[in-house]
């Protein structure tokens, strides 16, 4: 198992092209698919979910990481140190 993974690691560039051609493949596949019961307008647009995903994914990373940086992130001993302050 480790050898297979090392082999793949060594051929990362090929892997990258395989990945990109898979992405293209999913888009091409979407042209061929018959839509039987579209739930809403987005279901009948070709490549809708690809666009939705990439925008949603980038948006989510930027929003969550941003919120973490400006507000939520604290030292890992955030609650502990308060305790020790209290003990002093």
């Amino acid at each position, binding site marked *: 198992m480790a050898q297979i*993974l090392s082999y793949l690691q060594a051929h990362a560039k090929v892997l990258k092209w395989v990945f990109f051609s898979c*992405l293209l493949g999913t888009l091409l596949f979407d042209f061929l698919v018959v839509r039987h019961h579209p*739930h*809403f307008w987005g279901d009948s647009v070709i490549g809708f979910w690809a666009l*939705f995903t*990439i925008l949603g994914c*980038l948006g*989510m990373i930027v929003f969550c*990481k941003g919120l973490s940086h400006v507000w939520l992130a604290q030292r890992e001993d955030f609650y502990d140190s308060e305790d020790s302050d209290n003990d002093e």
Partner: protein
Amino acid sequence: MMSSTIFLHPASYFILGALLLPIFTRFKMQKVILLAVPLLAFWQIHNLPESFGICNFMGFELVFGRVDKLTYVFLHVFTLMALIGAIYCLHVKETGHHIAAFLYVAGSLGTTLAGDYLTIFIFWELMAFASTFLIWYRKRKRSIEAGYRYLLVHTAGGLILLAGIFLRYQNCHDLSFTQIAVNGATTADYLIMIGFMLNAAVPPIHAWLPDAYPEATVTGAVFMCAFTTKTAVYVLARAFPGFEMLAIMGAIMTLYGVGYAVIENDARRILAYHIVSQVGYMVCGIGIGTAMAVNGACAHAYAHILYKALLFMGVGAVLEMTGKSKLNELGGLYKRMPWALTFTVIGGIAISGFPLTSGFISKSMIIAAAGADHRIFIMIMLSLAAVGTFLSVGIKLPYFIWFGKDSGVKAKEAPWNMNLAMIFASFMCIFLGIYPEYLYRMLPFPVHYHPYTAYHLSETLQILGFTGLGFYLMVKYLHPEPKSNLDVDWFYRKGALVFMWVACKPISIANDWVGEVYQTVGLRFTKAVAKALSWFDWEGIDWAVDGSAKGVVQGGDKMRTLQTGKIQQYVGGAVAALMIVLLVVIFL
């Protein structure tokens, strides 16, 4: 109730197993009972009559066994998970840990089978108490503290539930546990719902989960991730299908949990937040309330228990072997723990809903049910959460543990029993994906849903592929940092400090001051009054009720020696008392 009826109930196997474990450990046969009990219970759930164990307790009708299709699907996965969990913790020496795990499973099975609210409450509390020990057994200061917080939050939730049960009894003198009509719900029903929602970790009463689970033992977390929230899903599905509030809260949950999973650093905290997200799908499905949505919620609970446990097992194996679970301290482990990687990735792709895995056939059912019910906004939210799922658990988690920058952490593969449990869970994840009818047959309503349509495949492949692209583009930005993020537990963790400060500083100062005034002024006055009263007491009262005062003094002394002041003993005593009540109830 006859003793033959007791052994109908699968929870009694676990309780009996827990009682026998110390004896079997003495004869070095712990492993036998650890495997035999879940196997027996798994066999037993197929032989249950529709109703059993009905008994009368102080005028209340207690129903220990009520079996229908909704019960069966949860019993099936709970006992299966108990078996996988037992295999995973075969190497654990501490008998107490196994006892806690067994009692915890018993609580979960008891709740699932209960037909009235009082029985539910008994097993509900057993679950909370027993699982606390799975946190405490980690024996670190942080775990002890987290365990106390966990216990306090669940006690509060239990009290809300109990208040709802009392109020309900006052309103309609009926404690049978059945579906509640959306239009007829009263305050009592909403209190019960809040009690259930706390265990389902619905924000804002969810913070106990990501607080406690990462602090539990490696094996304890595997049990905990399966039972508490999914038992809550079961009781919600039983009592509250179709409540609009649940549909909205569930959809919010899916995004809330996944948002934190994207930014957290501790691998088990990522998975814990991700439970909030996944349970959100189930809560949402219950809230939508159509046959397809409730089916989806049950199917997703079944699938989720297996792949979330698999993920906790994979990450737990890393923690067991390296002592680390923080992403910023790990990396490059693929050469040293390739099998743990393989199993974790199977869990990761299953949770993300890859075709041919269990997530593909369960999660999509809820999303499709939202679409079929014309709830487009909820459907979009659930789909976005699916993007975040693959991003945080499917890619980020394995990437930063096994690939990324090599941390140089020394590690070797996990013990055989851990790997065996992971193989078992991996097999189930893929088996359900290839053969969904196995699961669909167990669902409460007939299934008319076909996951493997060309459009669903196309949609899923686009979502997964382009999430991968998003990660590829942003991998530098996603780099793990040694930070933890604030959540609503801030209110009670900081609130407790404020309370302690108020108790220590102003109140204590005021107390000293009052004490001094009392010393100088009050004491003399009190002494005089006491003298007068004492004369009256000796001469008047004790003459009338001779002897009883002495009796009380002696009784008080005895009580005093029983109070050791150790909370563990109190909790242990409470659990023991609960078991005695339970046994008395069953035998009467």
